[in-house]
């Protein structure tokens, strides 16, 4: 049996988690105060994922940048590919929350969307 100590990143509470594993399978998650902690722990020891946030340049808008994020979490090892996919991307104003900026970023099947309105 193997025990792994994690800090939950599901929310800023940062619960200390203990995951008990055997032969790569999760037997038990302890220390979480909500269901998200359980989900995070199981994912983190098998297939860790993250949401990626960044900005892209806007032309002709009230701001020169618009913040963006992956619509959902993506595999951790794809983070830098996603960041690279945003390099040089420029959009024209207006941009609204939820607009797709890059579809299927880095072949993750996840779109990168705007997270602010720029008129």
């Amino acid at each position, binding site marked *: 049996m193997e025990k792994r100590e994690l800090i939950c*990143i*599901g929310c*800023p509470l940062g619960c200390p988690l203990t995951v008990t594993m055997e032969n790569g399978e999760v037997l038990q998650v302890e220390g979480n105060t909500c269901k998200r902690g359980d989900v995070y722990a199981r994912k983190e020891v098998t297939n860790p994922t993250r*949401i990626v*946030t*960044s*900005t892209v340049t806007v032309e002709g808008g009230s701001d020169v940048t618009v913040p963006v994020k992956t619509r959902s979490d993506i595999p951790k090892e794809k*983070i830098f590919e996603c960041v690279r996919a945003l390099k040089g991307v420029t959009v024209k104003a207006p941009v609204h929350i939820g607009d797709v900026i890059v579809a299927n970023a880095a072949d993750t099947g996840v779109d990168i969307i705007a*997270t602010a309105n720029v008129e």
Partner: protein
Amino acid sequence: MKTYDIVIIGGGPAGLAAAASAKKSGTDSILILERDKELGGILNQCIHNGFGLHTFKEELTGPEYAARFIEEVKELGIEYKLHTMVMDISPEKVVTAMNREDGMFQIQAKAVILAMGCRERSRGALNIPGYRPAGIYSAGTAQRLVNREGFLPGREVVILGSGDIGLIMARRMTFEGAKVKVVAELMPYSGGLKRNIVQCLNDYGIPLKLSHTVVEIRGKERLTGVTIAQVDQKGKPIPGTEEDYDCDTLLLSVGLIPENELSRAAGVDMNPVTSGPVVNESLETSLEGVFACGNVLHVHDLVDFVSEEAAAAGRNASAYVKGSRTAESGREIRMNPTEGVRYTVPSVIRPEQMDDTLTVRFRVGGVYKNCYISVYFDDERVMRRKRPVVAPGEMEEIRLEKAKLLERPDLKTITVKIEEA
């Protein structure tokens, strides 16, 4: 002079939540004064995710979280003025402000809600010796440059202080192609949230050196490097532990200071521990009808709790304006933070005035493992909650029930402390 029932100073997360809540409590005449070009405050540059889990049960970025409140404020038809700097609040609640359109103007408010937020501690407050070259920024300034202005402040970065903004910027600068070499923290523990150490430093292999500080800054025109040394228990650098780092950028993430010049000038009593106003259960300051919420009251880690606190301030300000508060009995219970607990908000509770449940927020002064958070009503322990770990970087809370306080007419002091297991 124009009059409003409630004037709110600041249109960030605290001001927005306070306004929406006051309006929903039945007060229509509300004005928000905001100095920036838009509502939302610092959330607009906090493009990372992790906001809103408590409030909306989903994970949002800062701008998305702000947008929800901005929309609500607009839908509720609450008035606001942008580009407007408040110059003075008098004890009689006359607010003096100025902007380019109206010039200088005064507003008579029945109630004022202080929601000015906080600002970053700067290099000047730290006394780091050396030259003053370009390339030294507060973490929040760098965040604004990268996220809002579209500039990268530098390529080789050292970060002093492990506050949350510094940790977030370590990851952000890495995404933009900069090399973050090290984060040095003076204290033996991090000032930021654990989750940010995991997902902003550990994920990218950025070392965090606890009990370390910057002892030398090199470079005359532009920063060329810094020296970091280990410090002893008193925070004094230990000779022989110096390490040189070549870098063109030093970010400072060394704490936040509530922005209370207006509050002080108005004559509000201040709490030296939080640098924010002393408030009672209604989040009302020592000036009747002047309320405070958010980071101007005490620095928070989670915007969700700012919104919750501000909503209470808005509700209470509305009750004050409408005259619907319970008549005062003069009874006050003093909060007594001690033995590891640095402060509580509120500092005083008038049981008749409190909601059925009151959240008391506080911070501890050090890292305690396997400890209890204990609450005493005078000498009697009434609550003991086991915690695997508590740390100064993470705000704690307890809840008090009105019924329990009313049951004890002789109760004078509520003590909150940390007890070792």
